[in-house]
């Protein structure tokens, strides 16, 4: 018998092992929900699967009585738009700042203390400032994501820039490259796949700030809806929304991974995941 740490599951077994806890969880839920509903038919804490189906149908297929919109899609669209703009701005900001501070010691000396300080401030603490400065509209939500995620990406990009072997920078200089050419021709192209990796890691934080901002001041969005229906203890809506957010996050993550493989084939065996 091999040691436990050396036992590798074969592919079908691996799949079953992965699915098993999920199935158990669902079974456990159904059992608990049945028990509660049997004791009290109007219990709202653990809705039955049928109640979920009704709620999903209501949110995802039937137009809202007041606005005529199909709420799930409106919410999804607004949230994804905020997230996309916020993450895109963070990525741009993080890439630029990480590149110049990572590559140019002079710039680093100027910016690094400030960047460290800023990334120590809990972004939620300055949300009121963002509301005051940018109003309650889209801008403040995007700004919160930028404040929360931008520094994370910038510091990661700075580290990644420094990890590109010094030999390459020397080599470029012996080929007559100036500083700008090294930044744009050697470092920047090698940072792009790393940026996508960095975005994948930072997206979780991005969602956090998105939902927080929507919960506090918004009129639509996935986070807004969850916090709105919480007042009616509408678990039959909240749980499908949470599952939907998780699914969206998974799709975005996998999409970025594939994009990375497609765009930067040279990176994958370079230590890229």
């Amino acid at each position, binding site marked *: 018998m091999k040691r436990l740490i050396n036992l590798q599951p074969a592919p079908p077994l691996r799949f079953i092992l992965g699915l098993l806890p999920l199935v158990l969880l669902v079974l456990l839920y159904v059992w608990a929900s049945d028990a509660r509903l049997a004791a009290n038919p109007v219990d709202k804490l653990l809705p039955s699967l049928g109640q979920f189906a009704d709620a999903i149908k209501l949110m995802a297929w039937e137009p809202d009585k007041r606005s005529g919109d199909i709420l799930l899609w409106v919410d999804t669209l607004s949230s994804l738009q905020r997230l996309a703009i916020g993450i895109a701005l963070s990525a741009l900001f993080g890439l630029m700042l990480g590149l110049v501070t990572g590559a140019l010691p002079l710039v680093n000396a100027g910016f690094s203390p400030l960047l460290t300080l800023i990334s120590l401030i809990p972004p939620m603490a300055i949300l009121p400032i963002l509301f005051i400065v940018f109003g309650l509209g889209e801008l403040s939500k995007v700004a919160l994501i930028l404040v929360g995620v931008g520094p994370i990406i910038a510091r990661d990009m700075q580290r990644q820039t420094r990890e590109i*072997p010094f*030999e*390459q920078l*020397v*080599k*470029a*200089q*012996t*080929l*007559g*490259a*100036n500083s*700008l*050419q090294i930044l*744009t*021709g*050697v470092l920047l*192209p*090698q940072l792009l796949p790393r940026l996508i990796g960095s975005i994948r890691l930072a997206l979780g934080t991005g969602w956090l700030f998105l939902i927080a901002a929507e919960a506090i001041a918004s009129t639509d969005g996935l986070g807004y809806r969850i916090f709105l229906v919480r007042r009616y203890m509408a678990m039959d809506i909240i749980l499908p929304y949470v599952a939907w957010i998780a699914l969206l996050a998974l799709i975005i993550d996998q999409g970025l991974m594939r994009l990375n493989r497609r765009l*930067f*084939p*040279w*990176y994958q*065996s*370079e230590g890229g995941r």
Partner: protein
Amino acid sequence: MIQINNLWKRYGDTSVLERINAEVKEGEFITLVGTSGCGKSTFLKLLLGTEQQSQGELLLDGKPIPAEPDRHRGIVFQQYSVFPHLSVLKNVMAARAFAEGRISALLLGRRRREARAEAEALLESVGLSHVLESYPHQLSGGMRQRLAIAQALVLKPRILLLDEPFGALDPGIRGDMHELILNLWHQQQLTVFMVTHDLKEGFYLGTRLWVFDKIRHDPQAPQAFGATITYDIPVGRTERKIYEEIDNQLRPVAAV
């Protein structure tokens, strides 16, 4: 061409190199050997300009050698010398793009065609014609070093620095690499400095062999003294006795 007068290199309290004096003529092929950590790479860095001496003079054509790498001094490291995000062909063409002041490592139009032809010819001479579109990670270690050599030679540097370029390669492949580097040295009339840990390589390849070693020792403070050139011999007519003497000094193990 190169004049070295009483050169010292220290890092803080640590002396790495001391009292180095030498003169090198255009076209010489100097191999550098010495124990690991004795300062061979440091010496190349001084020649390259990424490090500066603490004391003494390092002159190129009578003037202090530029304190920053430039296109007149090519380098091949043991690894990480090529750009992983560029294909074999683009790795070589990049040199031309940099030299012509392009912002990215890319060229356009006629310039591009010329650079491409030049790169293809050079890659042909190092035996990489069949992998022009591959990325470095798809190449074997030997092919990657061939690429690094081709890349270092595009702009026709006067001096070529090689820091254990074949250290990570199989002995079988090294023979081919030796032939390659000797051919290129002849064709391009380079002045070559090559660090190697293989004494045979040192004797076989160059026109001149330098051995770096410490001649002064302080048992209380091993870092107090640096290495200097203990042998400076023209190779090709070396006596067996000297070979064994040096071999013994570098690897004090009983010969079998």
